[in-house]
């Protein structure tokens, strides 16, 4: 089947199998391997992308369901060589251990800060509830979200 959608600002059109998941479309068809597959059941959040502005698990969406949609993956955040403030904060604070969960966390953070620019700790925890870090580096992730939120507010 034919799918047309906008991925990281670029229009893409491909012929795909109807049982392809959005996650497979992103990783295999478009070769954007920043988005990770963890559990494949919506439990871990490693595959989080923005679909029409909302954080979703790309392992739970069929690619064809995203026909006509606007998708942002972790590759779409940086501005050329300059990292997005969220990415910068994760690196600076040391919120990245093995790194596998990081793209998902960064996309969940992006969605959170888009709706809640000045989140309380409780709101951060709620915003990231769908993401697991098996290295258990949660305190640094919290620090990174707070730092990113402050910088993004200041640069407004």
């Amino acid at each position, binding site marked *: 089947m034919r799918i047309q959608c906008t991925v990281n600002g670029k229009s893409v059109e491909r012929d795909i199998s109807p049982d392809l998941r959005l996650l497979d479309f992103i990783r295999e068809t478009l070769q954007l391997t920043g988005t990770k597959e963890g559990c494949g059941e919506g439990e871990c959040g490693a595959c*989080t992308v923005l679909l029409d502005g909302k954080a*979703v698990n790309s392992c739970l969406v069929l690619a064809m369901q995203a026909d006509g949609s606007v998708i942002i993956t972790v590759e779409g955040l940086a501005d050329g060589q300059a990292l997005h403030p969220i990415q910068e904060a994760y690196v600076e604070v040391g919120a990245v251990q093995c790194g596998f969960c990081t793209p998902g966390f960064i996309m969940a953070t992006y969605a959170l800060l888009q709706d809640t620019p000045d989140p309380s700790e409780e709101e951060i925890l709620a915003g990231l509830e769908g993401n697991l870090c098996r290295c258990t580096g949660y305190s640094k992730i919290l620090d990174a979200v707070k730092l990113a939120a402050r910088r993004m507010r200041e640069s407004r």
Partner: protein
Amino acid sequence: MRYQRVINESELLDGLSQPGSLIVCGGTDVIVKMRAGMLQPTLLLDVTQIESLHGIQVDEGHLEIGAATLESDIMHSPLVNQHAPLLALVLRQLGSVQIRNRGTLAGNIVNASPAADGAIPLLLYEAEVQVVGPAQEQWVRLESFFTGPGKTTLSSGEFVRALRMPIGTDGFRTFFHKVGKRNALTIAIASLGLLLNIEQGAIQEIRIAVGSVAPTPRRLRKIESQLTGRALDAALPLEARDLITGAIAPISDIRATAAYRRNVIGDLFARALRSHLTQPL
């Protein structure tokens, strides 16, 4: 497998008349089950774009929610927070941000898990399910809609258009607690929800619903009538604990033993009543 994005209800009914067809909306259950081989549809009907399945409104004394409305939209709806605050509260604990941005409350119901979080507030608010088939449409009480684990009265060729519940419990006290291994994304080991109307220290009305302790989420109507009219005094929580542990017959499974489930429901019930005590213990 074929995939079709249906754009109106007549297209949907046409699609459902074909053997091997299956509705997908948010996909948070269907896609997992398809990959596990538990569902093998030959035609997948995507209903996300059908306009008549969307929206939240108050009409003729009912709060009505379209079947394709996202859980996140329901949770944030001012109408839901006003007329069914316990539903909004439970949705905040259902799945995760990512799940609620795709999943629907109607899907949670049709999936018919004995542990379905969404079923608890809907049972308490006396919800009905609008079932639409080729020949007729009707409102079915949620309590009789569930027939067993993963099973409902929905027949092949039919779909759910909306859920509705009568309004009129504004001011009722609410309680919901689920026990699981993780706050987010947990499948409840046991869950309990209450709607409680207390006047002058006595229970005017109590509605009790439990999850994960029976083949379907269910109301405990016998205990409700036993407790109606009773003074909510310091002795009641312990008595209520015995009543509820005697009224449920949970099973042991991969997540917990029957004895644990019975205990935890008893404790939750006692705790819920204690939190609404009008006299100090």
